[in-house]
């Protein structure tokens, strides 16, 4: 019975690990999207000028 805890922990670790990684990469993606937005704004501003 004791060994079942290890089994559960192992699967928990795998899912938690993958989930945490996805979370971290998702956050990076969002930050990038923000930067992209600012960038697009800057570009449209410069194009508006002669």
């Amino acid at each position, binding site marked *: 019975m004791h060994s079942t805890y*290890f089994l559960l922990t*192992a699967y928990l670790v795998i899912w938690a690990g993958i989930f945490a990684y996805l979370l971290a*990469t998702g956050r990076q993606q969002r930050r990038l999207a923000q930067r992209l937005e600012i960038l697009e704004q800057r570009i449209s501003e410069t194009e508006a000028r002669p």
Partner: protein
Amino acid sequence: MKPLPRNPEPILTLCTALLLAAALYAVFLHAPAERVMGLVQKIFYFHLSCALAAFLSFTTACAAGVAYLVSRNLKWDILGAAAVEIGLVFTTLVLATGMLWGRPVWNAWWTWDPRLTTSLILWFIFASYFILRSAVEQRQRRATYCAVMAIVGFVDVPIVFLSARLWRSIHPVVIKADSINMAPAMVTALLASLAAFTALWVLLLQRRVRTLALAERILTMEHRLDREPALSTERK
């Protein structure tokens, strides 16, 4: 500038999810419990799958390193960085699950078994890849250094394994002995989880490549906007 290729993520995500569900079903409901080790043996399926994903990552990183050195095209550097990153995640999982398996089965969290030792040193080598990455500013130089690091690290792995084998030659090769007399349902479960993790690996890799490529493009455009006097605007 090239448009990014169409996002294949939804289909891939769906496939991965289905495969993972199938693998979970096969592991927990289809495959029988192992007689000696009991339920804890079920760690093995996903543990080995993580190891496969890690191996795929580092092989990809090495191949990408070679491709970069030959072509000097930065897209290979991005692929390499993404692969090492994912490889590091999966190696961490391999080490963690390995310890959680070893504690009940071998009655020790850690033994200097060749596989364990190799995984640990591999983890160190590729963690240092990121330290190197963050320490080099200049883009092409960083790519070259990292490509060399990935190749050298990959070449080092068999030597690590060989030396670890010589180091503790008494240790039985646990996993191999298992897989030979595995029940057919166990083989099914193993194959299902291997397939699921390969799909997961592909999903993660293409996701990371896209993100890193996007980051690269944004950085370039910011540079360009800052540099070109004709296009510059006031930054707030």
